[in-house]
């Protein structure tokens, strides 16, 4: 956590997160993210080698229950939420290549 986050880092992260940023946004977000990460730098000073990370606030493990047949969502109702549907399936543009 030493170097301040750069514009290139932010552009890369935006790409990973499937977001497009304008140049102005890139500039503004870089400064703002750096401020937050600077604040988090106080964690760097902590020696936490022997501390277990918390994974759940309560000691609940292996939550099991009997497999009981219950109600499921209505297919038509779920598909009605989608922007585009065909033959009872979600319709998307081509994943490889482009639509004509």
């Amino acid at each position: 956590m030493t170097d301040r986050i750069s514009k290139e880092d932010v552009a890369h992260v935006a790409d990973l997160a499937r977001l497009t940023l304008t140049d102005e946004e890139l500039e503004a977000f870089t400064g703002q993210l750096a401020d937050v990460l600077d604040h988090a730098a106080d964690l760097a000073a902590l020696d936490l080698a022997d501390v277990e990370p918390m994974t759940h606030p309560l000691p609940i493990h292996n939550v099991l229950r009997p497999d009981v047949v219950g109600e499921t969502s209505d297919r038509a109702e779920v598909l009605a939420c989608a922007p585009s549907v065909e033959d009872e399936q979600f319709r998307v543009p081509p994943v490889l290549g482009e639509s004509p």
Partner: protein
Amino acid sequence: MSTPEGTTARVLASDIRSGARSARTVLEEHLEAIDAREGEINAFNLVLADEARAAADAVDARVAAGEDPGPLAGVPVALKDNMCTRGVPTTCSSRILEGWRPPYDATVVERLVAAGAVVVGKTNLDEFAMGSSTENSAFGVTRNPLDPTKVPGGSSGGSAAAVAAGFTPLALGSDTGGSIRQPAALCGVVGVKPTYGAVSRYGLVAFASSLDQIGPFSRTVADSALMLEVIGGHDRRDSTSIPEPAPDLSSVLDHGVEGLRIGVIEELSGDGLEGIADDVRARLHEAAAALEAAGATVATTSVPSTVYGLSAYYVVAPAEASSNLARYDGVRFGLRVDAPNAGDMNTATRTAGFGDEVKRRIMLGTYALSAGYYDAYYGKSQKVRTLILEDFARAYGEFDLLLSPTAPTTAFPIGEKTADPMTMYLNDVCTIPSNLAGHPSMSVPFGVGEDGMPVGVQVLAPASGEPTMFRAAKVLEAAAPDGHPAVGGTMVGSSAGVRHE
């Protein structure tokens, strides 16, 4: 200023169950209050007047047939618009969920309706519950009913404002880092974040899953207890749900604090913490004195690692958000912005659908989880949570409850903090530790600041410590100084009171 006692959920439900008042009449009174001021306040994304009338009539029909509609019979409630309502738009105040009508109800919605409550509408929030002022909304800013030039707090600002304005006696919010308690404090109402797992998150649109918890807003402590009894308890559809029934709070509410040991958290209220306003600190000390006068032992105590809470939170919450919000891809629900291939469609949809604060947190979280940074940020933050949990455990070895301010200041002017995210984040410094530890805490109005706006005091308890927490809250409510605009020994801010401004 105050309205009759008859506006509390308890009295309304009792009157409606006995047939003394009709649910329809009670609903119409609340719809009138909404008509009178909603244009100015903007608490709601959606008011469901027709549906609510049908639900109220159904409650009245059951009473007429000699049936008992339940403990919330005919009580109007508002839902934060990140809780799923079947067939009714659920937006999270985001463009990306435009047009979405969930195919199921959240568990809390089912339980409220089963208890006889009448859902009046969906309330505004900071987009996806990310914010502390309800200014980051695709549906515009919500205003504080006690001073419309000020924010109501956030992210559950619409629910807090709805209760403070007398639009509904009860509302639900969600709290990931303070999003129930901080707006409750700023609007002068009661707000509760229950123990993690005490209330089902099934049907709550996820922000940061290890921190999110649903809880009540109300004008009185007793009403929040009633609502929590209805919504709490195990739900098999939420695997993080505590496998116990909801605790009985109503029967212990008046047990007082005699003999309880209460610690004031030095790190969150002492001179060491920048930004806690003098008037807020003064009310906190008066609240501590009131608890002492009521028979509790009060002392200052240290919970040292809470000072790292904010840093850890602003790694953990964005990291979980970046993962949770990956599902908004334009495929299965909500907005789609078309493009020639699927990847570009995903990107175009997310770029158009999310607002700036959501984008900021997604990128922050993506960065914190990315190769080379995971251990330094997310891994370390999860370890800090263990430290905080251990520090709390030590403190609760000596004390039954802890005390701190809820928010560092009273409500701030609209627009004051939007340009600087880090300044906005500091609002949550006192509320975040409870979320990181999974512990319950609640905000109780306690007097006003120099500007005449309400101050909230936060009561913190160990996991499943709600019964004791509510006892202290009840004592604070009774001891709160007069002159409070919304809550006090008498009661209660109201449509009548606020209209008068």
